[in-house]
């Protein structure tokens, strides 16, 4: 005679969902979790761990993303359903605005220099650009322009840390690490930067613009430069030219060393 109670109890065995298993594994830190988010560039893969967001990437498939992640980070990443609260609360606005805000980021794999470059880059407002040399000077390493370029080329969290807003000093957009090189232009245009106007300045060798009512010069995409009306705008090819004309650098976009 079989015991009904015992056989019914045995039927109460069930299975843990794959995403719950992933959440359990990622909670230990041996693998990162990831989710996907739509963006202007396509589907973004966003990985995280207990320290914060560790990767933002574009990929054709989950498999591509997982392979690239483990190649770069030396650990695996697994799809999850639920994000930790602190990331869930800030991720979408960080992607939308291109500004990390209160989104925690994991820079633990980076050198102090790389992290400083990314933190400075995160300060550039949407729709504006700054040269690589500006980032170098701002973090106190004015000679490290090329190193800034390579740090940004390895930015683990593009879009959220807006490396697309850092350009060559001659005004050319320069390289971009996230997918198609044209993505840099797409992101900047989506943020409201008038690329036709911007490129006409760089083609004419104009690196700074000033206002003849304030005698202040700016990066051309600075909020203050763009408020200046056309008839009051003065164009400069170099810092020296602006200084000689009696202009001082803007304290907001800091196109040159600002006297304290």
């Amino acid at each position, binding site marked *: 005679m079989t015991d009904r*109670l015992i056989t019914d109890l045995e039927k109460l065995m069930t*299975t843990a969902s794959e995403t719950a*298993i992933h*959440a*359990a*594994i990622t909670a*230990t830190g041996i693998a990162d979790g990831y989710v996907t988010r739509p963006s202007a560039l396509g589907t973004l893969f966003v990985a995280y761990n207990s320290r914060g967001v560790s990767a933002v990437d574009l990929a054709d498939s989950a498999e591509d993303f997982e392979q690239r992640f483990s190649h770069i980070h030396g650990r695996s990443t697994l799809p999850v359903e639920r994000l930790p609260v602190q990331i869930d609360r800030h991720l979408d606005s960080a992607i939308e605005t291109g500004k990390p805000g209160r989104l925690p980021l994991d820079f633990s794999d980076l050198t102090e220099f790389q992290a400083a470059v990314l933190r400075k880059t995160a300060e550039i407002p949407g729709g504006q650009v700054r040269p690589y040399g500006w980032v170098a000077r701002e973090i106190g390493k004015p000679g490290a322009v090329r190193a800034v370029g390579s740090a940004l080329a390895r930015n683990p969290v593009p879009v959220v840390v807006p490396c697309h807003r850092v350009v060559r000093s001659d005004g050319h957009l320069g390289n971009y690490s996230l997918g198609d090189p044209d993505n840099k232009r797409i992101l900047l245009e989506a943020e409201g930067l008038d690329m036709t106007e911007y490129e006409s300045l760089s083609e004419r060798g104009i690196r700074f613009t000033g206002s003849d009512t304030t005698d202040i010069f700016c990066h051309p995409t600075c909020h203050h430069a763009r408020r200046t009306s056309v008839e009051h705008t003065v164009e400069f090819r170099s810092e020296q030219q602006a200084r000689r004309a009696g202009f001082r650098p803007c304290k907001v976009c800091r196109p040159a060393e600002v006297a304290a």
Partner: protein
Amino acid sequence: MMGITMTTPDMSILARDLAGDLDGSFAAYVRATADGIYSGSLRMLGDRTDAEDVMQETYARAYNALSGYSQERISTLQVRGWTWTIAANLCRNRLRSRSRKPTAPLGDFDVAASGRSTDEEALSEVGEALRAALLDLPFPQRAAVVMRHVLDLTYEEMAIALDRPVGTVKADVHRGLARLRRDYPEETAR
């Protein structure tokens, strides 16, 4: 993808692998034991989200603990029983903190919770009644019955998991089963 429905994972090989390479074998250990930890927590707590939380925290604590153990200690672990010492404590604590909240009486909480558990829908009315009867048992008996007859743990593993002598654990299983036979309406089963 590794199988997640391994029914008889070899726990001594798992212990040996964990001792040799904790980070490299931890995911395999989770996959081999997660169904049991999840099912057991679900039957002890009656709520899917709570069971997933307990499962997640169990492995986070297991990983931290194992990181501090010597290789020798890990290789001689009774893996399932040891993992359940963590999970059983978490289940017990969760029930305690629930009963301290006057706004969420245990009974209502469980009924509402089991109703929204999508993976439960396939279960028959038999399962429904039995799950409710289990949740009415005092925790030590509930844990003992679930471990022995749902999860198929040995009495030795249960003694480790519940930190009680084998005799006490056996007595809890017997008492729990006796109460279920009285409360669980078998005649409505078919």
